[in-house]
């Protein structure tokens, strides 16, 4: 048993942050969407476990993009359905 892989340290994993209520509110009004209409990510995804996000929270993902410089995406954490 070596040390557990910290996905946050990996070069190809973009920055993930848990959004606070204030940010979330502006996000939802900016895009005029309900929480359910956001893209999803499963609660047992390695990155979600690494940043300790709970189901129902929204994660901001900041990627480096060749064309856009930085691209932001948002994902709602949901519980993975069994089977």
């Amino acid at each position, binding site marked *: 048993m070596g040390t557990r892989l910290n996905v946050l340290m990996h070069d190809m994993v973009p920055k993930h942050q848990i959004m606070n209520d204030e940010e979330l509110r502006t996000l939802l009004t900016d*895009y*005029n*969407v309900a929480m*359910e*209409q*956001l*893209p999803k990510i499963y609660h047992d995804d390695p990155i979600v476990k690494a940043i300790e996000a709970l*189901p129902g929270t929204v994660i901001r993902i900041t*990627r480096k*993009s*060749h*064309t*856009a410089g930085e*691209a*932001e*995406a*948002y994902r709602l954490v*949901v*519980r993975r*359905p*069994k*089977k």
Partner: protein
Amino acid sequence: MPSPKRIGKLDFGLLSPKDVRKMSVCKVIWPDTYDDDGFPYSKGLMDPSLGVIDPGLRCRTCGQKSGDCPGHFGHIDLAKPVIHVGYTRLIRKLLRVTCRNCGRLLLEPQEIDKFSALEEDPFSTDVVSEKDIKKERVCPHCADQQMKVNFEKPTTFMEVWTEDGRKVEHKLTPADIRARLERVPDDDLRILGIDATVARPEWTILTVLSVPPVTMRPSIILENGQRSEDDLTHKLVDIIRINQRFKENQDAGAPQLIIEDLWELLQYHVTTYMDNEVAGCPPARHRSGRPLKTLSQRLKGKDGRFRGSLSGKRVNFSARTVISPDPNLSVSELGIPLAIANEMSIPVRVTRENIEELRERILVGPERPTMRDPCGANYAIRPDKRRLRLHGGSGPLDNREMVASMLEVGWTVDRQLRDGDIVLFNRQPSLHRMSIMSHRIKLMGDRTFRLNPAVCPPYNADFDGDEMNMHVPQTEEARAEAFLLASVQENILSPRFGGPIIGGIHDHISGIFLLTHETQWFTKKDALYLLKHANIDFLPKPGKVEDGIAYWSNKQVFSQILPRGLNMVYRATSCKNCPECKNDLCERDAFIRIIDGDLIAGTIDKKSVGAFDGAIMNRIIREQGLGRARQYIDDMTKLSIRSIMFIGFSFGIDDEDLSRTEYGQIRDLLDEAEVDVEKRIRIYNDGQLEPMPGRTAEETLEMQIMQVLGKARDKTGDIAGRHLGLGNSAVVMAVSGARGSMLNLTQMAGCIGQQSVRGERIVRGYEGRTLPHFKKYDQGAGAHGFIRNSYKSGISPTEFFFHAIGGREGLVDTAVRTSQSGYLQRRLINALQDLKVAYDGTVRTTGGRIIQFQFGEDGTDPTKSAFGDPVDVKGIVESVLKEEV
């Protein structure tokens, strides 16, 4: 139109026997359709209350005419229950997880509580599965010993237990199963994911069978006046007949054995009525031996209801025929045969302004004599939507004069197609949006669609028998959209890579290469001949005057079709990437310099004008727009076709001839290579071969042999290439990028080389050898698929065999690739078809769910960016400095 509604919830349930009876209008008991006089039997399968199919009659149930009456269901009371084949898996699961005595779930009360608790959790979609329940245990509720339930396809269930060490099987009848399922309480079903209010499990065992309306299974009357019934009707006749017999036997108190046989027969007929392709069940057949098309077969598969009738339908106002090339058309035009133009129409509303004009269309009628004549009309439509079909000729049907005199403002006239109308043109498979583009039509003789060969790449069309489809938009709105969004000129740039997809092909590239290569001089007559069809007004000052005769250079001629002010510096396809570039002085004339719309140096070839490359076109689009680019394509294709005709271009068998010296050199070279191979084999056999890292000695030998032979083949190509210069047509095509490569030329003139299967020499065949012509364990070049002959010299029988092996691999690969990528494409399109970019730049589904927060993460249209960059800085700098940077 009602506003779209959001679906809150969908229930998927079963029809209960009560439901079936409630919607039934007729209990069907008579196993026949029509009597000898052609009247339907009452209580028969064609009972008039089940709906009408004969025109003129009225439905006995709803009183509507054929076409308006949707048909009504009937029912058959089954003598004994039978299993519905579609639910056998559900039945099996339920039999295995519930008690055979009390019907409760085979779980401890606390386990049930655990699952019921999960039910409350909105995030959980958990249900109990077969795996959660241990087999053959005792029921925790009534302490009854459980038995293993075996299922045999298609519809047999058996209980198995061991008695005195022997396995005993007991068949469960549908009635037994139904009784067991009836005992399962609603609350236990909830945990299994079944809502008992809409789907009680015992409803999967049929006690009453619904009879579909006659509109769903119409009988057809054959030419000889005989009625031919639908497959479903045939099957229902079988079911009723057996059902009646069953009932009679039952009432007569027949022995158990006979009852069981009849029961099984009834089960078979009901099973095949639902699905005639169940495993373990011989399909029910028509008298002719053709398997019947029953319920499930109507829905399933490519021609089934979903893929065949709902996702895809047949359309009106469309035409299909063979395509053929016509380089004299513009890329945005489409030549159509008169027969199609006469058949297809566009509706035109009659107004005060156009009534006289349309009257004339009506007077011409449906038969336009020649394509020079003005177009006619096929229908006149009155304001009450009544269509009057126009008849021409001079027979009694001729109604042109009459209709023309009746014509008034407010009518609509279906006018035939004429030059300049906009149509959509399509070739399957429609893999990208450029597979459907709009063209302006041009009437032409003969019976094929004619298109400019330069638009072949987006359609992926050729003229070896391809057929294409044409659609005629019927409203002003549709025509405007087709013209503004789907026209050829709007689709020159492909969103796939942001570059032009329309451009010169084959002869266009050879022609423009021959024209612009090095320096040639043309007299005024010749220059004008070349530019005859190009859209230019005057010739420039002659490049030189000799003996009082003015000459124009080939580069001047080409420059005429370029827009003024175009500045470009780049290298052509024929550039060999020399370490030291000589720029303008390149001996291959591969360094292109265009200054202010004048070609100063360089040869125009695939990189400049070809489809998928088209550097010049790309620049014209960026600087002057798509309209100018279309003009340029038309000029360029016409100039290049004229050039190739003027200069002359042909290819024959003796174009691959080499001289005696070259043949000697090639022979010596191949001999040498084969000796080299023998030498390496000897080293290997002596065990002296040093294996490469990570490889065995055999692998190393194989690699070395492949390498030696590959190099030898390439060298024969060099020898051939030295002999064949730009005077050779194949070389011109390869160098310009029009078609073929130097490798193809090598194989024709020099040596075909090693044939391979999966990248290795051919080793399959007999023990230790590929063919009986060789010695066993011969490792030599010839024995494993090396072909030293060329296509020109002809190949030996063994070589031919190896060539066929290698060729087959290529064919298999393409066949597999196309089917796999086709399926992948279908799945992608099904998943993505309704996504759209919203006004805020997000990509969303129809439900407003966000897929991307910015289209492509950068919100950029690939056709509007310079190969990934927002601005083509290098190109702009170069065009200002007129120098390469």
